[in-house]
């Protein structure tokens, strides 16, 4: 005849027929999930999605703006402190200490400093060992945590 079948077709045919029968039996009892949606939900969905996108973009701009505003206001405040110190000083001479404090404050507020930048200038008497919490975590506790938290898998798979 010239026709041919896939490999092992007839061997798996019984299983396929019985599976179809089981599915047909199930769907004769239950043909839908029972879930429903609010009226007009799909019609109004576009507006909600675009609204969320716009809201996200506006809040990104606002947070950038408020950071810049804070930096700007801090700079003004530091300048005001400096001017006030200069003007309120009864002595005719402006001392190095007056300038130093105000300019140091301004520098500290405006420069992007991290802990490593400041650490060399801290004496050991300024650091209290009690401020550092010593925590030892047992290996068995880590294992228990990993076993109980199934979404850790998402950290190690795509």
């Amino acid at each position, binding site marked *: 005849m010239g026709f041919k079948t896939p490999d092992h077709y007839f061997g798996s045919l019984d299983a396929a027929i019985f*599976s179809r029968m089981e*599915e047909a039996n199930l769907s004769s009892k239950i043909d*839908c999930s*029972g879930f429903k949606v609010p009226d007009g939900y799909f019609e109004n969905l576009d507006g*909600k*999605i675009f609204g969320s*996108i716009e809201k996200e973009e506006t809040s990104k701009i606002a947070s950038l703006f408020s950071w810049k505003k804070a930096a700007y206001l801090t700079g003004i405040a530091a300048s005001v402190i400096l001017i006030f110190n200069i003007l309120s000083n009864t002595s005719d001479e402006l001392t190095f200490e007056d300038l130093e404090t105000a300019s140091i404050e301004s520098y500290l507020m405006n420069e992007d400093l991290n802990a490593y930048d400041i650490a060399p200038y801290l004496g050991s008497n300024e650091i209290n060992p009690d401020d550092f919490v010593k925590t030892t975590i047992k290996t068995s506790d880590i294992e228990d945590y990993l076993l109980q938290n*199934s979404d850790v898998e998402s950290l190690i798979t795509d």
Partner: protein
Amino acid sequence: MDSEFELVNRLRSEPTKELAFKELISLYKERLYWHIRNIVRSHDDADDVLQNTFIKVFRNIHSFKGESKLFSWMYRIATNEALTQLNQNAKRNLLSLEDYQQQTIDNLKADVYFEGNEIQLKLQRAIATLPHKQQLVFNMKYFQDIKYSEMSEILETSEGALKASYHIAVRKIEKFLTKN
């Protein structure tokens, strides 16, 4: 495939992306919604996840490589977002994922967006006893009648494995319904 290629190009181009995105939402919103709803069960959660899915698609369209169909890629994002939502809700309620799923089914009785009867509630309980991936396979085949070839692309599993998984799921569910 050409029309999909053209749609992706329009989604990536600044002057045309908004209109193209509206078209994309219109094409896929219902299918994606029902896929998500079958996972999270609550309409409010499904609504959140669906919106997050479309926003992620909008933001990441440039990273879509075209190795699979656009729909498969979106479906994958929707699945991951839905599973993340479930896990987050379970943690927030200090429950295991299995216990949280049972809780969502208990809540269906009083849910205005569930019009099912006792047998449909039992079916949900039966589905919740399956391994997570098998739940996905069952929902996608039984309720959405997704072809195995499409499912294979979405779940990155062979068609043969999916067929076997589905038929095992049907058998387990039949057993559960008979026993209960």
